[in-house]
């Protein structure tokens, strides 16, 4: 069953993220694909995540597709102008890639090529609008396409924005993304279920499925790092304490992720697991969560 069918049928969806490495070694990713196939509804492939130059998302999406794991092609606006974005989308489509996650993309200065010229010719809302145009059979300036794609576009939202203005702006932008064509959302990592419930109450009326982001904790340091540095991520002290008291940190991190997923099951329409190097542990997390 495709991700689109799962979400449209109202089933609880599970997606996981895989990140291409720097270079041409695809062993890790194809091994992860074997483990994830049949366990998740789709796998997102990141687009030079954190602005670190890596193997491209489209090629890995294609490899996953060949191995029977449905990909979600993550496309950022950071590196490509409107010609390249549209062309890459069409290229992906002819390789069988239908799911697209439209994102703005991290700034190059935060990555390993800080000297790069940032593009941002389009923003994520405009990119979603462009995908909708392609789905209608036209490019963004109205020229007719030979053959019409049928993308299933998604977008991201940060449910943990830390100030009132920032939170309201996330909701405003989410609604703009829906109006521009977003059919599902994947969120930044959620650890604080109470505030996520408040977010979900606010977006209920949008009637677009939301897959809550889940990042398994690997250490106390990781939790503190995210609290300090990652916008919109808040790991409650109670979880940090659980990690610090644990003898087997990995097992506890897995259990915390599984517990979160069990809770989230009653709150939103799916989960999106960003394992960040722990892709092979995803089946274990799913087992522990009963998914």
């Amino acid at each position, binding site marked *: 069953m495709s991700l689109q069918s799962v979400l449209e049928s109202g089933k609880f969806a599970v997606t996981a993220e895989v990140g291409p490495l720097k270079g041409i070694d695809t062993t890790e990713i194809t091994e992860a694909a074997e483990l994830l196939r049949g366990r998740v509804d789709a796998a997102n492939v990141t687009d030079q995540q954190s602005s670190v130059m890596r193997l491209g998302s489209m090629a890995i999406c294609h490899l996953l597709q060949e191995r029977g794991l449905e990909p979600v092609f993550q496309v950022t606006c950071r590196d490509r102008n*409107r010609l390249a974005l549209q062309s890459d989308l069409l290229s992906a489509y002819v390789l069988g890639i239908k799911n697209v996650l439209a994102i*703005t993309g*991290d*700034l190059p*200065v*935060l990555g390993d090529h800080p000297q790069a010229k*940032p593009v*941002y*010719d*389009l*923003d*994520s*809302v*405009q990119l979603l*609008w*462009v995908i909708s145009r392609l789905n209608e059979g036209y490019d*963004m300036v109205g020229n007719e396409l030979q053959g019409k794609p049928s993308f299933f576009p998604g977008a*991201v*939202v*940060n449910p943990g*924005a*830390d*100030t009132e*203005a*920032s939170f*309201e*702006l*996330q909701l*405003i*932008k989410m*609604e*703009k993304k829906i*109006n*521009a064509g977003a059919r599902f959302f994947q969120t*930044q990592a959620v650890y604080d279920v109470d505030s996520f419930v408040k977010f979900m109450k606010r977006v209920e009326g949008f009637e677009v499925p939301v897959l809550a982001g889940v990042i398994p904790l690997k250490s106390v340091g990781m939790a503190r790092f995210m609290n300090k*540095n990652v*916008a*919109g991520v808040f790991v409650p002290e109670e979880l940090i304490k659980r990690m610090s008291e644990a003898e087997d940190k990995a097992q506890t991190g897995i259990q915390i992720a599984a517990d979160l997923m069990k809770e989230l099951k009653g709150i939103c329409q799916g989960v999106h697991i960003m394992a960040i190097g722990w892709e092979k542990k995803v089946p274990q997390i799913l087992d522990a969560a009963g998914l």
Partner: protein
Amino acid sequence: MIGQTQKPIEEILGFLDGKEKIVLVGCGGCATIFHTGGEVEVKEMADTLSKHGKNILAAIAPPFGEFTCYAPWSKARLEQYRKEIEDCDAILMLSCGDGLQVVRELVLEDEYGLTKPIYPGTDPIGHMGGGPSLFREKCQQCGECLLGQYAGICPMTQCAKGLLNGPCGGSKNGKCEQEPEHDCAWILIYERLKKLGDLDKIKEFVAPKDYSKMKRPRQIEVAPL
């Protein structure tokens, strides 16, 4: 104004290597305000280069208010030093790149028919306003001003990603993830539109920007003053 900093002296000396007779040209506009090419800096540069064995034929410092990038003024000013300019081995410009290129093309080449080495003494860092000490970039001359939609705050310039439809997810405590000292433009826009009772503006879809209005080099013809 064009914000600018002075180039490292080593770089300037590198340009002037093997060149003995030098003419310095400053600017009474931005370069005076940014302390890169006003009367004081032109004199300082003349002294420094003299210490490095250069023969300064002329150290031209237009008075405050006289922009070197405005050709009628620079033509009139440099005419007083035409002989020194013709005799020199190189010209060092203590102005922005506009000043340098106006002098190179409209004065040296078009007026005097001279092909002389001309070098920059500053690194221009953008069009900015403010002062007297802090200057910030506020406008990038996109050719189609959007300030009317955004409560007078330009997201193309104030947002590190130049986003037109709302913030990325990267603001923390109202600050930008790229520059933690820098306010998130979108929070400023939101707060100001809210105070103006115009928040609905932020909900409108903004179509992709027409960047053909920024295709370079741009030019314009106006009636002379």
